[in-house]
C-alpha cells in the first residue's frame, strides 16, 4: 500500500479528466427533446394576414412545424428556400408546412416571407407561449408531426431537403 501512494493522487484525476474530455466532445446544442413521441400541443395563432391558424385543423396530415425568425442569420435564410421547395413538392400529398415566426417584428417577418416568396402558412407567436410549449430554445427548429398528431422528430438548425424528405416519407408511409 505504501508504494502505491504516489500514484494514487495523479491516478484519481484520470476519471475526472476522462469525463471532461467526453463532455467537450458533446454538442451543447444537441439537447434531446422530451417531446418526441408525445402529442403535439395544439395552438391557434394569427397568420401575417390576420387569419387564425390552428394546428388542430391539420390533423390527419403530416405536419412540418418550423420555428424561425427574420434575425436568425444565416440558418433561417439557408433553410427558407428549402422549406418552400419541399412544401411545393409535397403539398399535394397530405403534407403541410407551418411556419411560426418567434420574437420578431411584423415588418421584418413580412419582409422575410416576401423575400423568399413563402407560400405555406406562417403565423406569429406573440408572447412566445407556443415556442415555449414546444421547448424551443433557438431558431430554426423543426418538428415533424405524424397523422395522429404525435411529435416524431425534431431537427435543430437549418433543414436540408434530404432531412425533410427522409422524415416526411417515413411518416407518409405510416397508416393514417
Amino acid at each position: 500500500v505504501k508504494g502505491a501512494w504516489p500514484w494514487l493522487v495523479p491516478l484519481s484525476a484520470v476519471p475526472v479528466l476522462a469525463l471532461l474530455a467526453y463532455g467537450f466532445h458533446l454538442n451543447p446544442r444537441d439537447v434531446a427533446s422530451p417531446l418526441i413521441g408525445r402529442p403535439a400541443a395544439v395552438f391557434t395563432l394569427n397568420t401575417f394576414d390576420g387569419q387564425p391558424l390552428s394546428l388542430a385543423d391539420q390533423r390527419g396530415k403530416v405536419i412540418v412545424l418550423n420555428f424561425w425568425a427574420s434575425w436568425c442569420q444565416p440558418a433561417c435564410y439557408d433553410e427558407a428556400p428549402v422549406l418552400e421547395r419541399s412544401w411545393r413538392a409535397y403539398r399535394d400529398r397530405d403534407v403541410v408546412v407551418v411556419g411560426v415566426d418567434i420574437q420578431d417584428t411584423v415588418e421584418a417577418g413580412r419582409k422575410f416571407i416576401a423575400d423568399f416568396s413563402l407560400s405555406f402558412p406562417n403565423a406569429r407567436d406573440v408572447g412566445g407561449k407556443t415556442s415555449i410549449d414546444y421547448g424551443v430554445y433557438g431558431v430554426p427548429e423543426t418538428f415533424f408531426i405524424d397523422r395522429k398528431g404525435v411529435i416524431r422528430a425534431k431537427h435543430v438548425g437549418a433543414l436540408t431537403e434530404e432531412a425533410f424528405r427522409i422524415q416526411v416519407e417515413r411518416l407518409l408511409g405510416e397508416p393514417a
Partner: protein
Amino acid sequence: MAQAAVALVFWLVASVAAAAEGPRDVGQVSDADVNVVASQLRCVVCQSLSVADSPSEMAAQMRQLVRERLAAGETPDQVVRYFVEKYGDWILLAPPRRGFTLLVWLLPPVAVLLGLAVAVRRVRAWTRRPAPIAEPVDAAMRERIRTELEAEP
C-alpha cells in the same frame, strides 16, 4: 421564543391560505414569487444565466408565462414541472438529485471527506514522529566555536 413560535404559526396559516386562494390577478403575483421559479430555470438562449437574471426577450416571455401560471393557481413546483416537461431536466440550473446527476451532489462531499481523512492521517503520522535529537558537540568543536566567537569584532 414564544413570539417566534406564534410568528411561525401565523406564517404557516398565511401560506396555506395563500396556496388555497386559487386564481389571482396577474398583477397580484409579486416579482419575488416569479423569481422563485425563474431562478431555477436556465435561460435557454444564454450561457450560464437563469431566466430570472437574463435580459433576453425569451427569458422575459418565460417570466411572463411563470407569472400567468402562478396567477392561474399553480404552485411554483407545478410551474417548474411544466418547463421540465417541455425542455427536459436540461432546463433546471440545479441537476436533479436522482439517477446519474445524483453523483454531482454526492461526489464533492465524498471528496472533501476523503481529503480530510488523508490530511488527518498525515498530520497524525508527522506528530507521532519523535523530534530529531541534536548531535552532541564534541570538545574540539566546542573549542572552535568559542575561538571563532571571540574573534568576532
